[in-house]
């Protein structure tokens, strides 16, 4: 009240100032909390998740109760079977979280030193962060996990291991991939329609370019793919093994440049429709026939069954040109802080390393086993309605062979973002691919310590 002019306005102003300070302080604290990991992970020990139909997620008295986090409802089929049949007196509670929450809450509970589940799924895109830094149980040393090494798809085992070759994340599912197309559309363009003939026609990436142009000639409004920077760029990169590192050496130029050049050429020749993947536009483009197919992995079947049921039975798939690649897939891990690690290991073994566990999930969801003995089930030789009766399950098992692998790196995600930024410049601003990859390498070397170019 220093100037004593209008006391009421002064009071109000002081009040407003005080509240501005309080609100500002709170939002800053929220921001600070997020960066320490305290925000997202608060109360991680009692994470509720989305209820899953058909599961009773209560502790059962007299049993060892353990918790598992995963983002897809499909795990419940294995949980139901396991809870009924296991001999170790274990009761599993399945907490379904979003993909982001699963990883972020795992991270924050590891950082806090408590609150992690007994078993947690992690996805291939996140595996580099989690297996290289401790915090998760070493399955090789603690549980003799190596007994399953020969039963698992080779590259998947490498992805789940740290740089010393110890298995941290147990391989669960894989994403064998191929070229998806619609024979009805090919027929209208006077192209071969049977998978055998189409497969013969796409032996090289050059063949794919030709096929795309032939399709456009007959059907000017339909492209072979939606987005060359996904459908062509990603497969060519993945054919040299997942990730941007070989040991600690950056592979931007070796892997990125040829893949980008192919994508740019495809865009120029209208092999793609120039529609970004993974969004409303992509879905609309598929519905309207702006593009007819894609290069993607087996798990896409589940998503397309839900989003585009009108296309069930219209799909066929052929092997990708110039070698197999993998896209996606997950692992199960056992956080080191857990109290019931033996029980957790028993459950992980059931889900990942038995035909019953793997196939209980696969049969209902299409989550494709990395565990090779599971493929002996007659299920894998059945025709698949979604692909018009093509025996694609057997095809996926073949496409899961001979995929190259790189050991994961703790800097995988940052390197991916650095190169991702240069890719946007190539795609949207016409930057030269070779120059872009050179710049990406310089930027990565500047931002990430301990790597070589």
């Amino acid at each position, binding site marked *: 009240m220093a100037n004593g002019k209008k006391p009421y306005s002064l009071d109000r*102003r002081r009040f*407003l100032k005080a509240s501005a300070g309080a609100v500002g302080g709170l939002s800053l604290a929220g921001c*600070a909390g997020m960066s320490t990991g305290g*925000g997202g992970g608060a109360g991680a020990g009692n994470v509720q998740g989305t209820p899953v139909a058909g599961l009773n997620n209560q502790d059962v008295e007299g049993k060892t109760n353990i918790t598992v986090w995963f983002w897809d409802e499909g795990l419940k089929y294995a949980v139901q079977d396991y809870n009924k049949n296991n001999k170790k007196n274990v009761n599993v509670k399945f907490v379904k979280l979003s993909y982001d929450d699963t990883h972020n809450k795992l991270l924050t509970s590891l*950082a806090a030193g408590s609150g992690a589940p007994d078993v947690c799924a992690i996805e291939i895109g996140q595996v580099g962060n989690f297996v290289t830094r401790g915090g998760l149980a070493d399955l090789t040393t603690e549980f003799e996990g190596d007994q399953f090494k020969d039963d698992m798809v080779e590259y998947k085992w490498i992805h789940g291991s740290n740089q010393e070759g110890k298995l941290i994340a147990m391989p669960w599912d894989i994403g064998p991939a191929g070229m998806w197309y619609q024979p009805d559309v090919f027929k209208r363009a006077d192209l071969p329609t049977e998978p055998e003939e189409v497969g013969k026609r796409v032996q090289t990436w050059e063949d794919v370019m030709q096929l795309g142009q032939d399709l456009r000639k007959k059907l000017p409004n339909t492209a072979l793919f939606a987005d060359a920077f996904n459908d062509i760029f990603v497969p060519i990169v993945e054919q040299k093994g997942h990730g941007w590192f070989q040991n600690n050496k950056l592979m931007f130029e070796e892997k990125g440049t040829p893949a980008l050049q192919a994508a740019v050429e495809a865009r120029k020749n209208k092999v793609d429709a120039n529609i970004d993947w993974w969004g*409303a536009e992509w879905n609309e483009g598929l519905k309207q026939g702006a593009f007819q197919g894609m290069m993607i992995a087996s798990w896409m079947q589940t998503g397309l069954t839900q989003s585009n049921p009108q296309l069930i039975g219209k799909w066929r798939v052929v092997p990708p040109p110039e070698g197999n690649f993998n896209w996606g897939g997950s692992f199960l891990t056992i956080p080191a802080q857990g109290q019931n690690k033996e029980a957790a290991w028993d459950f992980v073994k059931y889900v990942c390393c038995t035909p019953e566990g793997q196939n209980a999930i696969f049969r209902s969801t299409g989550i494709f086993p990395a565990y090779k003995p599971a493929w002996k089930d007659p299920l894998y030789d059945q025709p698949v309605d979604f692909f018009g009766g093509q025996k694609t399950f057997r095809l996926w098992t073949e496409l899961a062979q001979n995929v190259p692998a790189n050991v994961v790196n703790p800097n995988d995600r940052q390197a991916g*973002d650095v190169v991702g930024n240069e890719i946007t410049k190539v795609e949207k601003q016409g930057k030269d691919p070779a120059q872009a990859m050179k710049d990406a390498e310089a930027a990565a070397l500047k931002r990430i310590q301990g790597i070589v170019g």
Partner: protein
Amino acid sequence: MASTTAGAGGRSGLGQKRGTWFEVRRSFWPYVFISPFFILFGIFGLFPYVYAFYLSFVEWSGIGGPGTETWVGLRNYQALLGDDLWWKSLYNSVWLFVVTNLNLVIALVLAYILNSGLIRFKEVYRAAFFAPIVASSVAVAVIFTTLFGERYGTINWVLSLVGLPGVDWLGSATWIKPAIATVVIWRYFGWNTVIYLAGLQSIPTDLYEAARVDGASWPQIFRHITLPLLRPVITFTVILSIIGALQLFEEPLMLAGGSQSTSPGGTDQAGLTTLVYLYNQAFSYLKFGYASAMSVALFVIIVLFSFVYYRTVGRERD
């Protein structure tokens, strides 16, 4: 809060001779009654902030758990000064702050109209303007990505009706910031309208009447009566807007690729705000120390912006 401090200060002045302990005992129950706020604030407000400040001097991936950090002194801050992406993200955030301040102008005009008595069903408008604040950000993101779609988007469809070429709103480095700003303005103008309306309603009507009797025009009344009397409210909203805009997170994250994007911030990182970058450093790259240094630097910048605003235009001069 202000009155509590004043009261306590007065009392301790009175009881100087009897000592502090006596005072604490005498006011034991009042302290107990106000303690929940301070306890909660200490745990959820103060502790994370102090901890983040500490973390800004260490290197820590988080995965190894507490105690696995290494002290690096000022190295995180030195790295920050030389990080071109940090400066770029800061530029993006300041750009968005400047442009999204447009929502204050819109809000002020709307509040003035609502308060003028020319409009019926004031409450309906007030609720409608406020609705975007309540909407879930995921729903907002879905709606706006559909609106901004390059090929099938509504906005480009409208543009094509009047013969204009479509714009790659979310995919081009030029348009991503205006697109984000549009969403932010749409989301927050209602909030500010309601605050301004409350401010306008507290201005006594006899001032307006007196001015009109003296022959002042509406623009003159607005300029010489409404604006000066509304100044504290405006200061409040501008400072909130500084805090909010420099911490933009959800809207840029959703519009420029989403949390799983391998090119956060979109083409040429034109939509990468400081907080999105900070989030990536912490949760994608697991550099919690560096991210904490960013949050401390951001805090200083926000305080600086608020202080400069307050000293230049926000304060009433004698």
